[in-house]
């Protein structure tokens, strides 16, 4: 193929612009506005009618809804909904009843709860988990039961057989009889030496056994299991575990109560002699319950009434309270009342208070409005409280080696619950009454603590001073006082303390807290009270407070034990104090941060501070104190990054630091800004993202400078922008990522040229060009999969080439020196064998070259003379450009030849068309050589029938428009280009 010459088309951009511009028309709507439909035609089509008709034909009865208080709404809810949901609804409701049973009851209970108990009432389920984690033991436990796994029973049988061998005949007979008993329902056995896990497992097994027995219609066995379980609650042998045991066993009781209720409800809804279900309304009265169900229900209660021991009788009856509704509406409340009296018979104060707690718990679910038993339970507790000092409790504590304060904390969950029930939706007067009662009855720390956590914090806050007095004067036998101060703090932090009390409360409390020697006790109070101080007081108090914490934490490096608490102190300060210049001007704040000596924690704290800074610092800062402090904290974070740091971690730290950098603004003091950037670079050199931000910021700074001088640099500003350029030039190479380097070189080059720093600009672009060969072949995309970097390179080069157009040549090194350099690099670059990206780039270079040959360029750097005015379309320059273009065409054609094999047909035609497009746009088609090249390429593209017809048609149209506009070359060419 002969070498073609390139003839650039002469263009007058100003003229073209004028002819191509559309006439502006005022817009009628905002293109980004959310779509809203204002006019809807009511469509009463077939589907709607079908839906309503089907719903009428099949009145949908949800078999679960008999127990659902919402059931009234169910049928109407489905009315008029689409047929699909109608179909799916019954299929859902006909799920196996076994799984749905527990769910439905649970949700029903929840619904019942929601009806009359609002969110302020902390449900038991929340407490439950807390108790289970708090009250644990490492001691051995024992269970007495007859219903545990067969594995253990077999062992027992074997042992008894062994005995039988040695025993007499009568022994043998006895053993055999015993074995028979074993097989029947197992005899009562005591399992000793269970660890806590084993114990929990056993109780879970019992729960399973209960459900299996129930499902197997063995109601008596189920009742026996429940009775045996509740008997365990009378056992205080491993007292620290008692609260958890209570939680586990009452779960079983709840299950049992539910099972009985469901069974009775089933019975109440079955009509005798048929299998029809007569649904009871959600809130049925006992008159609607058939006699058969009542009889069954009565049998249950007779059975329970004859349970010998008090505690099982109490618990089982409480568990079944709900079922009293079948006998007589309102009976359950009477029973609650009776049970509350009954609890007085329980001698052990711990067992008694938990029994009352269970009663309140059940009571509030069944009859939320019924309350008389709650004050009584509370009153009884106060009366029984002196028992704690009694001989029997002291004996228990002595044998189990449990100290008094620990014992009292065991009581607190139950007492908390009772008080919560008492305080729920109560008035302030009740608090006063309760306090009065406590004062005379048992002015005990435990009680005050529970009162504070039960009543509304606002009530407590209103009497903050009174409570501090109360705490000061209360007996110190039970709970240690620091826990009281902590609870008081928790209340005051949530609520609004009257202003006149704030200072005196703090003084009183802190006087006591300062005296705490034990760092654990101290920090537990300080952690809470710091929030109070930060919320209500100023700099001086905060400083003193922090200083005090430091003083208490420093001896023996106590802080090492309390990092989480100290951390929470920091986060509480940050949550309320957003004035960072005030914060950092506190003398004690940074020393406080210094207490975090473990690297990881320290970094966490720094992160926390920076996060808060980024979030809450809304205006730019230039306070040197803040900046210094933040730099210090940032440095800690930065220094924690090493080769092993995770990418995520790096990104988080990087983002925080970038946020900080953006927030530091010195206004028009650009030099200081730059020196700040220098400092930051020195401090945070390891993080790419920070360096990128810095370079961007510095470039921004240069552009700002230019804006201020309106492009006419004085000597001083010129020196400054050069300094900026120099900053960028030496910072870019220290980036890890070649891609960022490339982009930033280009950007900085553009900025330098914009600021008329020619040599700097050249240097940037040169650096970029020489970096291209080092570019990795793959890049990490966001979705981890690495992909080829060539598309990036292509985009980058397009942008780069358009910058090169307006980059003035360096007179020392000849025409288009940079472009030549780039082309050389591209020539040597190892491209992907299966791609044609190099050729695409070449076509762009061709386009750029034809632009370079114009008399005046399409765009310029403001106040920078580009090649057009430098050479003034000197023929020598144009010839030079043309020869470069000719070389490129040669390259392109050579490449087209290499992919002439049929399997590359597609690629070949695409490339050919690309070149045709470039020719049409930029080439002078009136030149015969250009015209023939175009038509040849057109034929080549069509040769294998792989050409993209759409593209060809577009090109054809383009040519036709141009021909119509009077372009001679196009007119000649148009008939040749056929699809």
């Amino acid at each position, binding site marked *: 193929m002969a070498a073609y010459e390139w003839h650039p088309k002469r263009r007058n951009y100003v003229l073209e612009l004028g002819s191509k511009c559309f006439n502006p028309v005022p817009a009628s709507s905002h293109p980004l506005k959310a779509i809203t439909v204002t006019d809807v035609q009511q469509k009463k089509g077939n589907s709607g009618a079908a839906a309503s008709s089907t719903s009428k034909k099949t009145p949908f009865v949800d078999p679960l809804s008999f127990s659902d208080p919402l059931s009234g709404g169910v049928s109407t809810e489905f009315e008029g909904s689409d047929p699909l949901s109608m179909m799916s609804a019954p299929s859902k409701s006909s799920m196996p009843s076994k799984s749905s049973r527990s769910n439905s009851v649970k949700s029903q209970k929840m619904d019942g709860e929601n009806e009359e108990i609002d969110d302020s009432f902390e449900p038991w389920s929340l407490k439950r988990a807390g108790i289970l984690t708090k009250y644990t033991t490492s001691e051995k436990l024992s269970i007495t039961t007859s219903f545990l796994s067969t594995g253990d029973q077999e062992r027992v049988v074997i042992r008894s057989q062994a005995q039988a061998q040695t025993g007499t005949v009568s022994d043998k007979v006895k053993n055999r009889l015993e074995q028979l008993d074993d097989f029947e329902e197992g005899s009562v056995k005591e399992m000793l030496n269970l660890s806590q896990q084993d114990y929990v497992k056993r109780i879970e097994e019992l729960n399973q056994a209960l459900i299996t027995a129930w499902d197997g219609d063995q109601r008596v066995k189920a009742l026996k299991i429940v009775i045996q379980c509740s008997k365990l609650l009378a056992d205080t042998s491993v007292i620290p575990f008692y609260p958890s045991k209570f939680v586990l066993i009452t779960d079983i009781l709840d299950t049992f109560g539910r099972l009985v209720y469901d069974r009775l409800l089933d019975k109440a809804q079955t009509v005798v002699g048929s299998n029809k279900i007569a649904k009871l309304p959600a809130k049925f009265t006992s008159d609607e319950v058939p006699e058969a169900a009542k009889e069954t229900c009565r049998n249950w209660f*007779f059975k329970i009434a*004859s349970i010998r021991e008090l505690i099982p009788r109490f618990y089982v009856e409480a568990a079944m309270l709900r079922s009293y509704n079948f006998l007589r509406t309102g009976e359950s409340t009477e029973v609650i009342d009776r049970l509350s009296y009954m609890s007085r018979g329980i001698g052990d104060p711990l067992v008694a208070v938990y029994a009352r707690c269970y009663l309140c718990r059940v009571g509030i679910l069944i009859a939320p409005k019924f309350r008389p038993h709650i004050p009584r339970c509370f009153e009884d507790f106060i009366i029984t409280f002196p028992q704690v000092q009694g001989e029997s409790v002291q004996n228990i504590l002595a044998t189990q080696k449990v100290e008094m304060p620990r014992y009292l904390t065991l009581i607190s969950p139950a007492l908390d619950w009772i008080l919560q029930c008492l305080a729920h939706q109560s008035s302030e007067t009740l608090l006063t009454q309760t306090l009065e009662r406590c004062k005379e009855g048992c002015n005990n720390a435990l009680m005050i603590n529970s009162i504070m956590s039960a009543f509304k914090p606002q009530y407590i806050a209103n009497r903050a001073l009174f409570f501090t007095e109360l705490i000061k004067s209360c007996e110190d036998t039970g709970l240690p006082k620091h826990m009281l101060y902590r609870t008081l703090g928790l209340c005051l932090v949530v609520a609004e303390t009257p202003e006149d009390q704030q200072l005196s409360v703090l003084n009183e409390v802190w006087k006591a807290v300062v005296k705490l020697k034990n760092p654990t006790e101290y920090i537990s109070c300080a952690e809470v009270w710091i929030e109070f101080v930060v919320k209500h007081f100023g700099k001086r108090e905060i400083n003193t407070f922090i200083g005090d914490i430091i003083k208490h934490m420093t001896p023996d490096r106590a802080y090492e034990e309390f990092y989480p608490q100290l951390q929470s102190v920091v986060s509480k300060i940050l949550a309320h104090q957003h004035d960072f210049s005030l914060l950092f001007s506190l003398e004690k704040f940074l020393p406080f941060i210094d207490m975090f000596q473990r690297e990881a924690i320290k970094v966490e704290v720094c992160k926390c501070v920076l996060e808060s800074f980024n979030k809450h610092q809304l205006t730019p800062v230039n306070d040197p104190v803040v900046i210094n402090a933040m730099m210090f904290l940032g440095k800690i974070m930065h220094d924690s990054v090493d080769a092993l740091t995770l990418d995520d971690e790096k990104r988080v730290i990087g983002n925080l630091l970038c946020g900080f950098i953006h927030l530091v603004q010195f206004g028009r003091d650009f030099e200081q800004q730059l020196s700040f950037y220098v400092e930051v670079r020195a401090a945070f050199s390891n993080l790419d993202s920070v360096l990128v931000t810095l370079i961007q910021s510095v470039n921004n700074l240069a552009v700002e400078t230019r804006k201020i001088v309106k492009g006419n640099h004085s000597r001083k500003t010129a020196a400054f922008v050069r300094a900026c350029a120099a900053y960028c030039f030496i910072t870019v190479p220290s980036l890890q990522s070649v891609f960022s380097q490339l982009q930033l070189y280009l950007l900085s080059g553009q900025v330098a040229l914009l600021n008329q720093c020619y040599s700097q600009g050249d240097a940037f672009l040169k650096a970029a060009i020489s970096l291209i060969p080092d570019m990795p072949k793959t890049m990490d995309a966001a979705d981890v999969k690495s992909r080829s970097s060539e598309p990036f390179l292509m985009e980058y080069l397009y942008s780069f080439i358009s910058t090169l157009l307006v980059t003035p040549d360096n007179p020392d090194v000849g025409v288009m020196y940079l472009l030549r350099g780039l082309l050389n690099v591209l020539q040597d670059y190892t491209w992907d064998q299966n791609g044609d990206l190099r050729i695409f780039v070449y076509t762009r270079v061709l386009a750029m070259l034809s632009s370079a040959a114009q008399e005046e360029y399409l765009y310029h750097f403001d106040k920078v003379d580009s090649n057009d005015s430098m050479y003034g379309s000197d023929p020598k320059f144009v010839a030079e450009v043309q020869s470069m273009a000719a070389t490129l065409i040669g390259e392109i054609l050579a490449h087209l030849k290499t992919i002439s094999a049929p399997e590359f047909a597609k690629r070949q035609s695409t490339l050919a068309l690309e070149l045709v497009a470039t020719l049409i746009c930029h080439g002078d088609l009136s030149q015969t050589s250009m015209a023939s090249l175009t038509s040849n390429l057109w034929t080549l593209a069509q040769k294998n029938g792989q050409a993209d017809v759409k593209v060809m048609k577009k090109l054809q149209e383009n040519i036709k428009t141009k021909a119509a506009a009077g372009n001679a070359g196009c007119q000649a060419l148009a008939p040749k280009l056929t699809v």
Partner: protein
Amino acid sequence: MALIDIRLKKVNKIFKEGDVIAGVVVVQSKGDLQHQGITLTMEGMVNLQLSAKSVGLFEAFYNSLKPIQVLMYTLEVAKPGRLPSGKTEIPFEVPLKPKPGKTLYETYHGVFVNIQYLVRVEMKRSLLNKDLQKQTEFIIEYKTQEERAKDKPVNFTITPDTLTNVKEKQNVPKFKVKGHIDSSCLQITKPLTGELIVEHCEALIKSIEIQLVRVETCGCAEGFAKDATEIQNIQIADGDVTRNSAIPIHMVFPRLFTCPSLSTNNFKVDFEINIVVVFSDDHLVTENFPLRLTRF
């Protein structure tokens, strides 16, 4: 294989004198069932028994202890014939009337005295087949009773001094338990209620219990045997209870095992409760209260 069953219309099976016992006899059979007649018997018996310890003494007038029949009624439900395969229900109705000169006592299951009412159905069959039989118990309650429950509160105080059968007084710890029972003459359907206060007690208390005891007397003019046995024991206090706190006494009378107090020529059924205070050394103090139970 054929099955026969009785189903009473009333689910709780409680009847009063003069009521009509209505129900169905249900016969289920795989094939045709030939039978020689189905009869239904309604029977009420008072069974008296002697406790082992008094057997020797009473062997003399053993005869007087034969069961007393208070109710006997037989009717033919179906004449000999053949029943179709499947389920056949034959309804029946029997008026409840005692035998002349007898009274229908309330149902009571005791140890030495048993008052029981049964409906029995029997299907006679040919020699080759076993007769089929099924019986079911029903319960009699008084229709009216002259004696009515009334408020008869009983106050009590238990101290070492009130104890009668103590050998060494000095071994008894000092204590004082006060309380009251709301009524000692009460309706069987209502629970026994009351209150108990431990005013002071030197020793640790292990448990306080209410024991329900039946006192059954069998015999005639020549002599009688009286035996007291426990029916149930209900714990009302567990552990060392708070002093001066009112502990409720509450006991539901179990069905079948209790009946209104009964006194006839040959036998008597009475009830008592014991309040038992058990100390931690397992010594116990008991106070006995006779009760009078009525239906109304």
